């Protein structure tokens, strides 16, 4: 999942308008923000699989994406914002952990319970529906946006340009579509 994570961030923003949007949007992507440097440092491994959905195999992502480490990153990230209040800190932590929960649906079983655990989880929508996953994620984005839009009409402190926000997220989703992936 890619753009869907940002859509989840909109829902959290709607629930906790006081939480800065940049904090929530950074939070929802934090596990993949860590994944990049971890691969470059050799802590994690990925193999490209052109032509085989989803185009890559996440061989070892236990330090950024395992259940335990997702919770650790969530707590650490949330703690950074305790000065802004407990509610904001909890929202930031939930944003981080939402990434793991959503990835469980998309990833094949490459999400370890903890680093180097033998048990891995993942429903594998990417593999079960090599193209259909994109529409499932689009539907998820739509549901999240409807909630965000409705809340933004009630709470005027965010989302006054909700359609522009949606346009950006849909653009990101289109860029991440199976039709544009490297062959």
């Amino acid at each position, binding site marked *: 999942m890619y753009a869907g994570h940002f859509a989840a961030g909109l829902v959290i923003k709607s629930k906790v308008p006081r939480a800065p949007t940049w904090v929530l949007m950074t939070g929802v992507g934090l596990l993949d923000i860590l994944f990049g440097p971890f*691969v470059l440092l050799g802590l994690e491994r990925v193999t490209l699989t052109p032509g085989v959905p989803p185009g890559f195999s996440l061989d070892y992502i236990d330090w950024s994406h395992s259940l335990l480490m997702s919770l650790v990153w969530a707590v650490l990230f949330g703690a950074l914002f305790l000065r802004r209040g407990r509610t904001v800190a909890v929202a930031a932590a939930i944003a981080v952990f939402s990434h793991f929960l959503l990835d469980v649906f998309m990833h094949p079983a490459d999400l370890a319970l903890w680093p180097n655990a033998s048990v891995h989880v993942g429903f594998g929508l990417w593999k079960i529906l090599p193209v259909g996953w994109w529409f499932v994620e689009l539907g998820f984005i739509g549901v999240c946006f409807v909630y965000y839009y409705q809340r933004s009409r009630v709470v005027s402190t965010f989302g006054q340009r909700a359609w522009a926000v949606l346009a950006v997220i849909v653009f990101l989703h289109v860029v991440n579509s199976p039709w544009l992936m490297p062959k």
Partner: protein
Amino acid sequence: MTPTTMAILTFLSFVLPVPILAWLDRSPKDRAD
């Protein structure tokens, strides 16, 4: 594409949208402040 390229692209793809989305989400009142 190589794993290194994918790592860099993944990093950028989750970092670059953050300021754009945060800016678009701000209310007119916030921007005036």
